[in-house]
């Protein structure tokens, strides 16, 4: 192998890494925001992505709709589902021990996986491409247009989210509720609306994530959410759960690490490497890269 092809391979893998990394980051944001506000590891989040992928498949294959409509349906469906799950399963448990909430989230995740398996069967459905674009080529280096679109879309979403959280009234309310729920309520912030809104935003990001994921791996199957969700979740913890820039950094780091491990020909080890990075970061900095540490109160 000449030097040139080696460099091309590495560049390609870095691009792949950034692509899957931005998908992880989008999904990780959902985990992170929900954790920040109600301290719940929302295990059902990965399955919301699965639902999004099925919605896109339904629109495009069953109903032969325009891909743009399919994207809109996936995002809207995920948003509605996220809010529904929050209202039906998590609101009744707001004052229960956190472990009950966690088990409920696992229950919701099982429910979504098995319901979809019951309806659509265990086999994977092929999601057709959302758009046709030629791959770009720079002096022999071919860049996948899917990857570029994914990275740009993810970056735009994250920028919008940052604006939403930092500049709007609702964003301020979200930050206040995650800081101190009781005090926020005393200041006249509606807790229920804010939490609902957080789930909506997180699930919408998951919807976008599912569309982008389908451009990279054009398949929908009932169990796709669990490993994807787990990786994104690791990304959120790695970056510091509850922190929005942390989720982005974590997602990109995981995506790049996976791509580079695969490029080195060790793709069967990549899950192990992801978790090893997580463990090392947590041992050195127990709250993740950008996480804030809470002082122990006696």
């Amino acid at each position, binding site marked *: 192998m000449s030097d040139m092809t080696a460099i091309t391979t590495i560049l390609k893998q870095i691009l792949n890494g950034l692509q899957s990394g931005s998908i992880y980051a989008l999904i990780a944001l959902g985990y992170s925001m929900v954790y920040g506000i109600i301290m719940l590891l929302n295990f059902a989040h990965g399955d919301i992505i699965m639902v999004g992928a099925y919605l896109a498949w339904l629109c495009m294959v069953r109903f032969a709709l325009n891909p743009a409509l399919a994207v809109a349906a996936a995002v809207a469906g995920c948003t509605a589902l996220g809010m529904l799950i929050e209202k039906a399963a998590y609101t009744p448990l707001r004052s229960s021990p*956190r472990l009950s909430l966690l088990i409920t989230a*696992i*229950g919701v995740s099982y429910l979504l996986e098995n319901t979809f398996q019951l309806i659509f069967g265990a086999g994977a459905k092929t999601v057709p491409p959302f758009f046709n674009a030629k791959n770009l080529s720079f002096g022999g280096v071919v860049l996948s247009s899917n990857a570029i679109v994914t990275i740009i879309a993810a970056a735009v979403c994250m920028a919008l989210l940052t604006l939403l959280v930092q500049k709007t009234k609702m964003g301020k309310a979200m930050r206040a509720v995650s800081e101190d729920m009781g005090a926020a309520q005393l200041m006249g912030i509606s807790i229920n609306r804010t939490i609902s809104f957080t789930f909506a935003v997180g699930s919408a990001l998951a919807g976008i994530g599912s569309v982008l994921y389908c451009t990279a791996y054009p398949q929908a199957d009932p169990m796709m959410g*669990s490993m994807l969700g787990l990786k994104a979740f690791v990304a959120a*913890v790695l970056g510091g759960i509850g922190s929005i820039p942390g989720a982005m950094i974590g997602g990109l780091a995981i995506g790049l690490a996976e791509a580079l491990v695969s490029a080195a020909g060790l793709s069967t080890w990549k899950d192990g490497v992801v978790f090893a990075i997580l*463990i090392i970061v947590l041992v050195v900095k127990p709250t993740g890269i950008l996480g804030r540490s809470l002082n122990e109160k006696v």
Partner: protein
Amino acid sequence: MDKVKTGGAVYRRLPTGLRYLINTALFALFLITITALADNRVISYSDSKVLMLIAVNIILAVSLNVATGYLGQLPLGHAGFMAVGAYTSALFMRSASAYPGQLMFPLGLILGGLVAALFGLVIGIPALRLKGDYLAIITLGFSEIIRVVILNIDSVLGFKLTFGAASLKNIPTTTTVFNAFLWAGIVCFIIHAMMKSRHGRAILSIRDNEIASESCGISTTFYKTLGFCASAFFAGIAGGLYAGYLGILSPGSFGFMKSIEILVMVVLGGMGSMLGSIIAAVALTALPELLRAFSDYRMVVYSLVLIAMMIFRPEGLMGSYDFSLGGLLERLLNRKSAPLIKEDES
């Protein structure tokens, strides 16, 4: 609580030795009955397989309960310890197949348990510095790493050890209904005795208030690691039984979902209740088998039950209640002897 005076009457206690004798006798009777039923094919072969799985799951649930219910931590990597125990004892049993199985099987199980406990120590020391959800994630990470290592270790070693995704085959199937339940009973007894001891009380105090117990001079790091290692040890034993039950091991069966499955048993049964863990392990293993006819819907029903249970009874089936036969007998004994005197509620 020795002889307690309630309203002038003496509360009579059963001697501890007698309590143990009654429990042992009842357990022996149960073992003999169930073995006789299985040997004479009153219980069909497939049902006796389910019974073995029930015993394995009882050990898993009860052992996770040590770390979750008694120590108050939330590890999500129990399947990892089970995998370590299963592979260790399977490899041992394969290489010791020339020796009598009755002798080698317990050795293999204990070896599996010890190696799992060693992993528990190595993982516990860094992991237990973290709290709550972070502990959950880091243990989950370790167990996934264990799975990936088992899957790929052969390519590093250069010879076949675990056979990776191709599964480790030809493990002597030495697990029977008798020894599975015998081990389940032994494990439950050891955990019960441990929790009634000074060390068990220290572990419980960490669950109730870590800062307070530390200020009372309890070495929280030591006892957390101890509890965690004990939990891993018994998970390793369960793994060994599982290997002998299945005769074939593949790393895929020790994924993250397995850990969740065990956690669900503990939480549904009631955290910190051994009886609850046992009931939940029996129910959650037997129910899917009974619902085979409705196999399409059973997982949907299962998840709905899980959600409903957490919404309507978040403390689990048993809460933290634990059944004690001796205690029940004592109450009966005292009621008979002094029926007119009301028992003091305070």
